[in-house]
């Protein structure tokens, strides 16, 4: 793949996590454009195609998502879509991340949260 071998296989960056979650949300309908609009709708942040594609390639290299070509449409100039799907490894990692987050949240003393 295009991503260097030295990159950590298990660490998930913030944006990678968002993209991986979105791929899971879209459930088989996830390709570049749909992922971007989903993230923009849900998180109200602007996402560039370059950022998304880079992250998708990286996730695929880490074997957290798998992809296959889909249909071509007229607006795409006859170019096929590449649909992404979460792998079991990706699901495991998401669960792990969620557990870690929850345990972090649970570890915060009640008094600290009240202050804000």
């Amino acid at each position, binding site marked *: 793949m*295009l*991503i260097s071998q030295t990159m950590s296989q298990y660490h998930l960056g913030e944006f990678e996590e968002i993209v991986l979650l979105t791929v899971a949300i879209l459930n088989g309908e996830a390709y570049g454009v749909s992922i971007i609009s989903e993230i923009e709708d849900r998180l109200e942040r602007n996402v560039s*195609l370059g950022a998304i594609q*880079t992250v998708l390639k990286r996730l695929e290299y880490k074997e957290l998502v798998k992809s296959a070509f889909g249909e071509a449409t*007229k607006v795409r*100039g*006859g170019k096929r879509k590449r649909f992404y799907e979460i792998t079991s490894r990706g699901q495991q990692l998401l669960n792990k991340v969620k557990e870690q987050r929850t345990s972090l949240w649970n570890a915060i003393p009640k008094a600290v949260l009240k202050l804000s």
Partner: protein
Amino acid sequence: MERPEYIPPRIILAFFRWYCHPDIREEIEGDLLERFHNYAKQNNKRLAKWFFLKEVVQLFRPSIIGNMHHLTFKLFSDMQKKSTVFLQVVLVLIGIAALAVMIRFPLTEGRAANLDLFRIYADPFLVYGYLLSIAFFVALYQAIKLLGYIRQNKVFSLNSVRTTRSIKYCAIVLGISIVMAGLYIRIFHNKDDDPAGFLAICMVTTFISIVVATTAAVFEKILQNGVDIKLENEQLIGQSKK
């Protein structure tokens, strides 16, 4: 291929196709076009073009470009073919125009009125000019040949090095001879005629020859380097095959 409703700026798309790695080009180009289409539908077309440019620039990153083996200058190959033919035609036209001027001009000169044809053309200065023009036409011919090599993708060959070298020599010869002619007029015919116009032409043409000679010399060097590298590579490949 079906044509989409909104068509993005071609040159930007060509730029994207050039740098994007071929393995991932199809899906990303599709995404780009779809995003452009959506944007053009919601906003106006002009804004969409800027948006498209922004997206293409943002995609210009190592993970999309990949290993760079595909980064040749194919982007210009189609354009190149047409433009080399066009330039060749222009050069031929320049040659014809120069020839026509050279033949017609002496006849229209004031002193031609009282002379017969032979005497008009036998003037030593004109003969000198005609001899010089050989260098000009040789250079022109070589330039047409060079464009031909470019079209056949044979730029990095010994032939094209030779061609640029001869263009360089022609330009040097032309430059020196024009300077000599100018000096001759300036020194020996200073009194009987006003040489300002002629000298001005001399200066301009000399300047052009110097520019051409320098450019040709630079190109010769570049091409020679290219050919050397190519030969070295071929030798290496030959050795590894053995």
